């Protein structure tokens, strides 16, 4: 019984993805027929080629990879630094500042887009990737996540021992904090990468079709710049496949990371 339900859940979870591939593998006309296709056709390569060139999917994938990697690297670095300070160092207003960090998680992104856009327009950054990268480089969730991990995983004695040996701030971070934080850094990097890859609201505003991320390019497809449904599905498949690969390889760690963040959050 349990398995029967879980199989149904599995089918429902995977069906839209599988069907994306089925729809992307035929001609557009095949989708305007009853019954709808339920098996793969032979035009996948052609559709992917059209999406790649007409919808700038090649550029979009490269851009998204650059953005997501940079954002993940920056978030992990800054979150580990701040998380370490909040977990192990003593300073004035520490608790108030930590509360502020947590508070940033509840602020909807809509509240910032108008001035952000004005700023980006002022700097002539519309369509430049830094307009998407810079605002995403820090995350309250990341700081909180690293703090919660380091409170337990980093023995205070270890820091004191390093200090006693004459290690300064940067050396302590490099030789003590980073090694201790490595597992959490890896999880945070994956979670941030996924989030940055799929980020939608701000990139759609800050970028245009001439230099898009994958999500912006897909928005263009959906708005009918390329009318062929099979090509649209090929684009959707291209935009999703890299993350699915990440999931196949690191699925267990990502699941663990989400569950870890959930318990502590």
């Amino acid at each position, binding site marked *: 019984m349990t398995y029967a339900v879980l199989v149904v859940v599995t089918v429902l979870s995977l069906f839209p993805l599988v069907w994306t591939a089925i729809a992307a593998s035929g001609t557009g006309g095949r989708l305007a*027929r009853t019954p709808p296709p339920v098996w793969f056709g032979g035009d996948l390569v052609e559709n992917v080629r059209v999406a790649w060139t007409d919808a700038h999917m090649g550029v979009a994938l490269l851009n998204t990879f650059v953005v997501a990697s940079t954002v993940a690297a920056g978030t992990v670095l800054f979150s580990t630094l701040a998380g370490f300070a909040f977990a192990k160092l003593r300073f004035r207003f520490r608790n108030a500042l930590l509360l502020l*960090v947590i508070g940033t998680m509840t602020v909807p992104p*809509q509240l*910032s887009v108008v001035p952000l856009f004005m700023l980006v327009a002022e700097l002539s950054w519309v369509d430049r990737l830094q307009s998407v990268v810079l605002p995403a480089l820090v995350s309250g969730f990341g700081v909180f996540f690293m703090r919660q991990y380091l409170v337990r995983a980093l023995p205070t004695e270890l820091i004191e021992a390093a200090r006693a040996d004459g290690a300064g701030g940067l050396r302590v971070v490099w030789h003590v904090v980073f090694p201790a934080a490595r597992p959490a850094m890896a999880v945070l990097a994956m979670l941030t990468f996924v989030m940055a890859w799929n980020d939608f609201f701000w990139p759609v505003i800050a970028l245009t079709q001439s230099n898009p991320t994958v999500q912006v390019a897909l928005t263009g497809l959906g708005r009918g710049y390329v009318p062929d449904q099979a090509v649209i599905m090929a684009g959707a498949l291209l935009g999703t496949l890299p993350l699915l690969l990440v*999931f196949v390889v690191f699925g267990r760690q990502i*699941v663990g990371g989400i569950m870890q963040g959930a318990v502590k959050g």
Partner: protein
Amino acid sequence: MTGDTTTTPLPDDTPARARATAPAPPPAPASPPVPRAGGAPGRRRTRRRTRRGARGGARWGPYAHIAPFFVLFGAFGLFPLLFTGWASLHRVELTAPTDMEWVGLRNYARLLTDEFFLNALRNTVTIGILSTVPQLLMALGIAHLLHHRLRGSTFFRVVVLTPYATSVAAATLVFVLLFGRDFGFVNWVLGVVGAGPVDWQNGRWTSRIAVSTIVVWRWTGYNALIYLAALQAVPDELYESAALDGASRWRQFVHVTVPSLRPTILFTVVVSTIGATQLFGEPLLFNGSAGATGGSEHQFQTLGLYLYEQGWVDLHLGRASAIAWAMFLILLLLGAAVALVGAYRRRRTP
């Protein structure tokens, strides 16, 4: 988050551990005196000096660690947040964003009589309920099933999370096809069962249901994992004794799983509600080529989408800012209401 900071102005890092080890005698070579919670603010400073005095730069060290976060957050988070409030009191057009004309609360006053704003508010609430309730209920059920020992549990966990890896854009584009009126998969299945074809995109309720379905599909597995994580803190004995008493899986679900998860459920309700108020990508793309109207009759235009339409289609940045702050205020009101209800219930059931 609202901890009683008055009693502990300087809480320790590891309250749980500290408290657990408190009764035991302290380890013999208690190296530098670890500052404890409490004490007057004046004394705190002297204590820090004794501790840090040996190291010159150490006083500023901690701030150097948190500085990158706060500098970037200040520039791209806090400043825009406040500036949005400022802009909402002005007439600002996207064509000339530096020409700001003071209009006071007029943008907000307009919203109260703006038919499209009220429509978007209604749609946001409706779609929010239609997506949050089934999503969390199904997540609870899935978590309950996955919590029991079973073969391939890691496989199922990864599988239920795959929709989370799918972007809003990719997911919505597929569902647009699946919910197509003439050749969509859903209508074909309905036809096989003998039900008539449904015009998912143009119906008032059907379109909202379809948009909610996309949200439910993407987030159910994620919430299931959050519940699953919380369930692992529940002692196995609860389930074992329930099973010994002959409780079925269903009764275990009702009497063990749901009650133990109550705080987590509240947490997910809050998070999902925040997410629901921001709904944007799904209604934008469910519309196909028609832009940001949320359907031919705005039948599934949400607040997020209306903000976008006002700001980037109609070019009224001031009004878009007012919508943004109105959304924020609605969330705050909602939060206050939840807190009040919680306090009231706690008083009635001590």
